[in-house]
């Protein structure tokens, strides 16, 4: 089941890479976060870790619902460009994405025989990190870049919950706090722009 969710996680991220519409992108990001939340809940239940359960719920509420909603609102308010076409051609992208996946597995190969259960998770999170970077690379507009940054955050979370079986509660809450702060700042940044015009 964990593997299935991780697969879905990766799949949503990859799909987001090919998306050309902003709302679609938000949608895929929301799904991506949802998968992450489920993953956290699932692992939390398996390990009987309350903190993980809280994290999972928070993830679903904030990342899967809250942030996409806020971003959508913002985009409507400030009239974002809604057509976001990747700068990197699809022909390249279909070669690149598998290459990145292969590379990250190759990279984490030395760890495989060191950590018993979840070495693959490390590889997958590194690859999703790279993929989120790719998402940021291939767009020029700000909005998809923000989404790229947010999915990077997701990749971090994935690593946090899978490879390390959950981080200390305090840290996780702090990360959430910072995420909210980031959204506030982003909001302010947009606001300022509007004030000027």
């Amino acid at each position, binding site marked *: 089941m964990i593997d299935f969710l991780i697969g879905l996680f990766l799949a949503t991220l990859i799909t987001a890479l090919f998306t050309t519409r902003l709302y679609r992108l938000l949608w895929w990001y929301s799904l991506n976060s949802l998968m992450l939340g489920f993953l956290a809940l699932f692992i939390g239940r398996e390990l009987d870790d309350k903190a993980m359960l809280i994290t999972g719920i928070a993830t679903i509420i904030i990342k899967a619902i809250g942030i996409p909603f806020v971003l959508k609102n913002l985009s409507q308010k400030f009239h974002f460009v809604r057509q976001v076409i990747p700068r990197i051609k699809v022909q390249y992208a279909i070669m690149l994405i598998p290459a990145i996946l292969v590379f990250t597995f190759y990279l984490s190969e030395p760890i495989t025989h060191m950590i018993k259960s979840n070495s693959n998770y490390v590889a997958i999170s590194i690859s999703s990190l790279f993929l989120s970077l790719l998402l940021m*690379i291939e767009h020029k507009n700000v909005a998809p870049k923000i989404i790229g940054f947010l999915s990077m955050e997701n990749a971090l979370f994935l690593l946090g919950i899978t490879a390390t079986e959950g981080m200390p509660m305090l840290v996780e809450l702090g990360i959430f706090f910072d995420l909210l702060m980031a959204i506030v700042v982003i909001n302010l940044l947009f606001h300022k722009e509007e004030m000027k015009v």
Partner: protein
Amino acid sequence: MFQFDTLSMIFIALILLGVIPNLFYSSGYLPHIDRKVHYLLHYFAFIGSMLGVVVSANALMFLFFWELMSLTSWQLILTEVKDKNTISAARFYFLMTHFGFIFLLLFFLIVTNGNLDVGFAEMKNIASGFMYPTVLFFFLVLGFLSKAGAVPLHVWLPYAHPAAPSPVSALMSGVMLKVAIYGMFRFLFDVLYPWPLEWGIVILVIGSLSSIIGVLYALSEHDIKALLANHSIENIGIILIGFGMGMIFDSLNLKVLSTFSFIAALFHTFNHMSFKSLLFMGAGSVLHQTHTKNIEKYGGLIKTMPITALTFLLASISISALPPSNGFLSEWMIFQSMLGSSHIDNMPLKLAIPFAVFALAVTGGLAIACFVKAYGITFLGLHRSTNAKHAHEVNFLMTAGMILMSLVVISLMLFTPFYIGWFDEALAGLGKVSVYAKIFPSGIWNMHSVSVHGGIVSPLVLLASLTGVTALLMFGYKAMKVKERVHNTWGCGYKTGAKTQYSATGFAGPIRRFFNWLYKPDEHFTKQTIAGHQSKFSDSYYEVHVKPLFETSLYTSVAKAANFISYWVYRLAHFEQIRYTAMIFNLMLLVLFSYRIFSHEFSWATFALESVIMMISIKVFIIGDKK
């Protein structure tokens, strides 16, 4: 922290001998400086830092004072900023001195193991354990000789010295360069002692090159201070020849000759301090009166500035190594030490040293020519400009400075045995053989060369006989009561005027033409011909500039390279403005790859594969498609 052994004391004496007359001169010069506080602050800090360098007993102190010395001298150059040249000269000077500092720093860091408080004895232990002493030697040479102004690190001198206020140029050229020589003595003797033969040869070659190149460029120079600065290069070269011979003899185990050569080098160091300071002071006085450094604008100053002219003459004789001056004596010693090379068994070396003799002799000949030019054009003949016409003798303090400095010159001439005895003591203190008894075996009248069949010179006898004979002749002339009549100079029927005189350019003409292949001069010639006749003209103008070879080849290309690199670096920086995420992406790839490769199984196949991936990724993400 500090030490006061004989070598330090000698150099303290050198600095004080250079500084005390300079204080007088400087206070006479002070009313003409606008930024008095700035000047005085740095002036005294400069003197203090030079003293600090020669008494430091550990690396930290040495480097501190050394860098302070550079800093203050740089600020002193900037005291009177009148044009852009001063600014760029100061900048260039500071860069070069910092460049030298780098090597010194490396040297000290290596020989102190990073613990900069250790003394010289401990440094020697560490240095002897170091695997590549030649590296240390080269660091030392580059560090000190860039300050001393030896070829090829000499280019800053002709820019920096003219730009500084005259008392400062006297100090910089007369004293500061010697501090670098002190460094050579101190660290080659105390830290890097057993010298391979090659080191001495390197120093000898540098010295020979410096002496020739210095004097050649001095000859083609029209700026009086730059001329003197070029002569500093030459004299540093001469000192280095003596030094190099000393090292060669030492490594060949000819200890007596070695000490003799080192004494010669030290003696010349002193002499150069004295006469070069004096020359710079004289040049400063002239400049002060005429407000130009261009030698072509002087002329006839001996009539209005007799004291300056007389002291300048004394210094010119001394720097041209004419007997019985002190300059002659030290150069004589260096010649003698080179003649000692006939005892060497090493045949190639034995054959090579005559070339150094040749270099030194050429230098001597050209130096005479150069100082005839400098003296003759500046002080003799007719005024070449209005300023020169209105010049008058400088104020009392400045003349006092010059007179005091000429007393130093004369004392070096008269008390040679005393000085040599002192140098001998210092070298004996550094573990060398004492040779004083061999140089003056029978009293102070005759000075012997220590080489077998070496020569003898008797400075005092020479001085006495020359003055005696001259006085006798003049007395005879006076006694004859010859009638004297004053009349115009005969000029082939033309009127003699300032413009009919030989110019400095013209004076150096034959030598410049002879060395044309080296100078590659930049000539400007304009002529207003009359009615198309080539030979008839109303007005003509000829100017020639010689740009130093090293500057055009070495330094300009370095500057060009720096520009080129910085251009491409800027181009690279352009990408980070638009493709920053891609940059980070590739950076992560690179770092992770390298960790993967170098931490674990390294194989060329993976290396090649990963390089290819890197290249593709850089191409795709960063460079992108051409538009």
